[in-house]
């Protein structure tokens, strides 16, 4: 029940969507995509969290607990955290591809304005 985390993820996603829809600079548009990716990571890690849970790592357990007690106790969901880990790595690769496309557009059309690129295509 961490509603505030979900609401913040939705707000960050809306900020990224607003950037993609209204800004004209191509690099700013890619920045909006990065904001949407960050909202996705926040939503996944918030879904994995349970009340009063700790990290799903058995190394160095808290005082007074053995690793078995920690594994049977209240830990966060490791599956969603691994999804989030994969999403981060894929996200940086996708951002690199987008930025290389933006650099090629800037070399070809001599501009970074999305509207001018659309006009120049005819």
């Amino acid at each position, binding site marked *: 029940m961490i509603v505030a985390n979900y609401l913040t993820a939705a707000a960050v996603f809306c900020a990224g969507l607003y950037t993609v829809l209204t800004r004209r600079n191509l690099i700013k548009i890619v920045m909006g995509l990065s904001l949407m990716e960050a909202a996705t990571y926040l939503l996944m890690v918030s879904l994995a969290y349970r009340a009063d849970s*700790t*990290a799903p*790592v058995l*190394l*160095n357990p*808290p*005082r007074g607990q053995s690793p078995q007690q920690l594994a049977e106790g209240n830990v966060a969901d490791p599956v969603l955290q691994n999804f989030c880990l994969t999403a981060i790595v894929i996200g940086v690769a996708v951002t690199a591809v987008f930025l290389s496309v933006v650099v090629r557009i800037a070399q070809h059309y001599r501009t970074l304005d999305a509207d001018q690129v659309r006009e120049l295509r005819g």
Partner: protein
Amino acid sequence: MTLIFTLVAIAEMAIAAPLLIRLAIGPTISDRIVAVNTLSTQAMLSVLFFAAAADRAIYLDVALWLASFSYLGTIVWARYLERELL
């Protein structure tokens, strides 16, 4: 003891909050780099004290990575300012 550690973590993040004003109004790019660098240090201290409060020593590695990689980021941004990165 746990309460003191948690209070220090909260205070570190609360102290780091006004740095966003400098990040918003900074006249040059160097001001913003200074603000982000200090914010990274405060975040590292907050992670350290949250690790001591939650009694998990595994969280401390994140603070170690933050400390070392913020240095690397500052060096890269300084090189970018001197136009040697292209």
